């Protein structure tokens, strides 16, 4: 399963990167979203897969019984998901406004500030 997930991660990265390299703002943000999913999945996988043993301590117990899914990567990913959600929401609005200012969705029309 790990090998399969590694492949999935690779595909997500490839798709994300390809989308980001387009000229469309919408595709760019879709690419970003794919990329953050890929990163999260990468963390999840490299932390080790443990099927169906969530890190929930049973009522009355005082500790998790091994084997259990590593709770720390989960917490990290959760934080990362929330952060990327926030950032994505902002980026969406930003891109919308940029497209509005530029009158187009085309990134190639947004090059005036560079040189």
């Amino acid at each position: 399963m790990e090998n399969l997930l590694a492949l999935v991660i690779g595909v997500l990265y490839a798709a994300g990167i390809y989308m980001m390299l387009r000229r469309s703002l919408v595709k760019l943000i879709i690419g970003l979203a794919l990329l953050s999913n890929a990163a999260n999945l990468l963390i999840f996988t490299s932390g080790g897969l443990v099927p169906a043993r969530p890190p929930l301590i049973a009522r009355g117990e005082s500790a998790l019984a091994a084997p259990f899914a590593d709770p720390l990567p989960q917490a990290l990913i959760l934080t990362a998901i929330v952060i990327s959600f926030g950032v994505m929401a902002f980026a969406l609005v930003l891109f919308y406004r940029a497209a509005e200012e530029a009158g187009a969705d085309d990134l190639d029309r947004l090059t005036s500030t560079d040189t």
Partner: protein
Amino acid sequence: MSDLILSTATRFLMPLFLTFAVFLLLRGHNEPGGGFIAGLVAAAGFALYSLAYSPGRMLQLLRVGPRTLIGWGLLLAAVSGLPALAAGTPFLTALWAKLHIPGLVNLKVGTPLIFDVGVFLTVVGVVLTVVVALQEEED
């Protein structure tokens, strides 16, 4: 027509969402859930209301501005770490108290729960801020 369906459905769904959110928030420390998830659910409820009626009516219902909610949420989360400093322990050290009402409640209440409430309020505030702004953008 669809507005009618939506608004009727909302009238039922909204309290359900909010109750569920509170439930998720309170049990989050022990079962799946927690401030963030609960916040999203609650925000979904309000957002539905806002879509069904209008942002203005939703804000009336909410009473507090969503941006103020963000402020309070952050404040609560940050402040929940401060009593620890007063107690001479590092920032964010949890302080717990037993809340015991015989027959009704028997649980531990601590600053981490306040923290989680802060998370909850922030999430609700953020989602509603964005949704309202976007909705107003439509007009």
